[in-house]
């Protein structure tokens, strides 16, 4: 199968900061490539290069078979972009925004309006179609921005942290939409700080840090590397710690970690709630008082720990939208 996205050795430096240090990316036609990395890893830089917004210092890329350097215009006519910062006009209505984008894709007046109406309907924005974006919630803006990327039905789509800052419901809605799209053969490059999101949506995941790949594989391969769910126990008394350690060891599927500062123990496990129940019973039987106990899914930070033996430098925050004040690249 041909690759719809292919990039070799992308390098981009901003003064002393190396945003990308020789990154390769590839996505087969009709698949989803997840680019997973903490804040500052170089995700947006990679997306900006592949969507012709900035030029790399070195490296080559083809999008839908078109050379990025030789024919940027050709690339633009085959891609859709929904960037990290929503790029819609605050003072236009939802419909006006989409219609404008459709016209600029040269869909023609009738087709452009048709598509705008269709997409507003599909993204549940029909009621808000005539209101200016100023009145939209964060989730609505995200959806409209995504609709803008889809208006010309481009074969290759780039979504840069599409769910950053969204509440869980809006996030799930967006996931559904993305799955639908991919079901129709669109190739998608998606960046995220959430392992869960990459896991849910991507066929292939590239984990990047400081502008280079540190791991690459399918979601299953990555999970094998980092394990599945964990039990996390915050113990009140330090005297109880060895007891808890022993109980967890009986159920853990890997090494147990202890953070002395918070007196928290984390144990990877192979089962789910069942094992949690067993651990709770054992703790109760031994009379251990815990401050907090629960199941936790692995996060990007766990990926980093497993791969590099250290934490991700900038822990992902719930609202990952770090937008610098306007500046030209």
């Amino acid at each position, binding site marked *: 199968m041909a690759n719809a996205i292919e990039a070799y050795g992308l390098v981009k430096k901003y003064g002393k900061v190396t945003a990308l240090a020789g990154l390769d990316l590839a996505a087969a036609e009709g698949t989803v490539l997840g680019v997973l990395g903490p804040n500052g890893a170089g995700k947006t830089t990679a997306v900006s290069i592949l969507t012709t917004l900035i030029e790399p210092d070195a490296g080559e890329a083809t999008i839908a078979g078109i050379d990025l350097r030789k024919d940027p215009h050709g690339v633009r006519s085959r891609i859709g972009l929904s960037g990290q910062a929503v*790029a819609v006009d605050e003072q236009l209505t939802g419909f006006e925004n989409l219609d*404008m984008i459709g*016209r600029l894709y040269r869909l023609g007046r009738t087709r452009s309006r048709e598509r705008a109406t269709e997409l507003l309907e599909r993204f549940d924005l029909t009621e808000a179609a005539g209101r200016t974006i100023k009145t939209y919630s964060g989730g609505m803006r995200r959806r409209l921005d995504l609709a803008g990327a889809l208006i010309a039905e481009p074969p290759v789509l780039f979504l840069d942290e599409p769910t950053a800052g969204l509440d869980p419901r809006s996030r799930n809605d967006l996931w559904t939409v993305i799955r639908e799209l991919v079901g129709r053969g669109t190739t998608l490059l998606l960046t995220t700080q959430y392992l869960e999101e990459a896991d849910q949506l991507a066929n292939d995941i590239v984990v990047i840090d400081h502008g280079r790949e540190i791991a690459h594989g399918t979601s299953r391969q990555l999970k094998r590397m980092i394990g599945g769910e964990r039990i996390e126990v915050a113990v009140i008394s330090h005297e109880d710690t060895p007891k808890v350690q022993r109980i967890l060891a009986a159920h853990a599927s890997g090494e147990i970690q202890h953070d002395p500062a918070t007196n928290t123990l984390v144990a990877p496990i192979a089962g789910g709630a069942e094992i949690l129940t067993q651990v709770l019973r054992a703790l109760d039987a031994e009379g251990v008082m815990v401050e907090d106990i629960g199941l936790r899914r692995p996060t990007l930070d766990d990926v980093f720990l497993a791969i590099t033996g250290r934490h991700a430098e900038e822990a992902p925050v719930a609202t990952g939208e770090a*937008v610098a004040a*306007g500046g*030209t690249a």
Partner: protein
Amino acid sequence: MKRFIHALADGSVIARRNVIKIGRVPEVLVFVLISPIMFVLLFAYVFGGSIDIPGGSYREFLIGGIFAQTVVFGATFTGAGIADDIHKGIINRFRSLPMSQSAVLVGRTASDVIYNVLSLLIMALSGFVVGWRFHEGLLNAALGFGLLLLFAYAFSWIMGYIGLLVPSVEVINNAAFMVIFPLTFIANTFVPAENLPTVLRVFAEWNPVSAVTQAARDLFGNLPAGIPEPTVWPLRNAVLYTLIWVVLIIAVFAPLAVRRYQTAAKRG
């Protein structure tokens, strides 16, 4: 040719969007239109009565200068508009679309003409109220206004380029003042160029703002008989000299701005 047609087609989509936005924030328009009225009234009453011009009315003489100064200042909108598109991030959308690379600038400079048309209209009306008249017929007056608009349009490209260089509305406003104040004051805008001290006089005589002002006054019939005919070429051939500058400015700044546009992006 195809590129040119695309630039116009896409530019008109952008211009339409800008026009819609003007209507959505009428406050801006109110300020745009109030300040020219203020200028006309202030200058007419503060200076208009106190400066004597032999053989004519200083007030009539002054209005042409105020027209020129105001429309040149109007170019600031272009810089601010471009800066706003970058700051708000919609530039990233435009730049990822298969649209003409000059459309954002073509559309912006075109839609900003509206501001100048409106402010000229308002100034002409308030000018009428304070006693300004044109004496060379409607056609010449229209040509005068046309020339002012054309010159302002060219200036828009300079400010558009600056807007791409420093995409901050505050910086644009300050930069505009730094460029536009000397350009409109060291000119014949408020006093005949001949009255200025030598160094300033030479600058004023070759300043295109002087030429467009001179041309407008001439076409409006606002040059008092008592003022000596200008001796320098630019002011004797004010219309031609203005047109040369218009072509020159666009020929230099349009390519510069379009090139700069192709690297402009919001970081985020």
